């Protein structure tokens, strides 16, 4: 990783930019390149998203002072702009539509998460119904045969 002026940092392909579980106080805006976001579940790295220029990540740690919830690696040579906690308000003052775009994207992510929750609940419902049918067949095979 190479530090440049004005919070700009260059990463080579495969470099880890943020690591899940570590504390961090910066968010990143992708100026050039692509990054991949993964989350560790058990022993597996689960793919969450690919982000490209114009996208941002790391805002949860910056806004809520919580450990990183995912790992982000450079998928191609990438240049990122790091925004530290103390710089965010100044960034918004200089670039007010950035706040609007942050809200827009976070709103979009919440909507996608809601959709996924609904899908999971529907899947769960189907699974439960299937299990109930199976258990009925197992418990009352004769009755099922009569019916």
């Amino acid at each position, binding site marked *: 990783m190479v530090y440049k002026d*004005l919070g*700009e940092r260059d990463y080579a392909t495969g470099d880890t930019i943020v690591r899940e579980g570590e504390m961090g106080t910066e968010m990143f*805006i*992708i*100026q*050039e390149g692509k990054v991949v976001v993964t989350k560790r579940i058990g022993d597996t790295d689960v793919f969450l998203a690919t982000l490209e*220029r*114009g996208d941002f990540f790391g805002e949860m740690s910056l806004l809520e002072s919580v450990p990183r919830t995912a790992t982000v690696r450079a998928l191609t040579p990438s240049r990122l*702009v790091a925004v530290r906690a103390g710089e965010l308000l100044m*960034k918004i003052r*200089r*670039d*007010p*539509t*950035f706040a*609007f*775009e942050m809200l*827009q994207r976070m709103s979009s992510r919440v909507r996608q998460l809601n959709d996924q929750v609904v899908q999971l609940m529907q899947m769960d419902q189907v699974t439960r119904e299937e299990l109930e049918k199976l258990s009925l067949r197992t418990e009352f095979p004769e009755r099922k045969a009569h019916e």
Partner: protein
Amino acid sequence: MITDLREDRLLITSDIHLGAFSCQAGGPFTRFFEFACANGFNICINGDGIDVLHTTLGHITRDVSRVLGNLQPMLRSQTRIYYVIGNHDIILEHFLSDWGSLRLVPFLNVSSGDLRIRVEHGHLYDPFFMKHPDLQSALTRFMGIFLRMKPNWYSWTNTFRKIRYRKPEAAQSQRDKHGRLTIPGQNSAFIQAADELARRGFDYVVMGHTHAPGTFDLSGGKKYVNTGSWFHHPHYVKIENGTLELKLWNG
């Protein structure tokens, strides 16, 4: 509200000020619109397309309805119109949404080929507007009353601009009186704002508002482009399959 889009053929212009007492752009803008429709371009009006500050309800109704009447046959075509809100039409912020082929937005992030282009009117970076938005609005309205009495005032300022900057073509960067590089006729704050925006991964930042057309090389090979106004030497940006150029409208 969708502000991110991909466009292969898009024309961007700004500051037409339809409805303003001193606006003479109705005819040329209708021809510009015809040109866009005939050549399969979508259109982006980057702020101050209509002017609700330098006018009266009666005047704006007559002026805009006449232009809309001319545009009506073309409005039925497939041409999509993006309208970015400026400061002279800021009341339209209440209507930010998609209205069929018309989309009202606060800004646009346009992708074309490998280019990413930011389109924004630019009033948010006007130092005076940022410090005193109410005062600026009041002064602009006062100016409207003045222009009602002296509608030629803008043409006097245009003559001054023509003498000062001479060429009808868009200007290249020059140093201002403080020694900072900028486009002649505009505050360097817009350049700083464009630089800040470009750092978010844009190749071009296109603005209006200053009525000073020109291009400026930002750091990292990015560019700032201003489309000026329709009061004198109207300019537009032509985006075509991943290329962008600032052009003078002679129609």
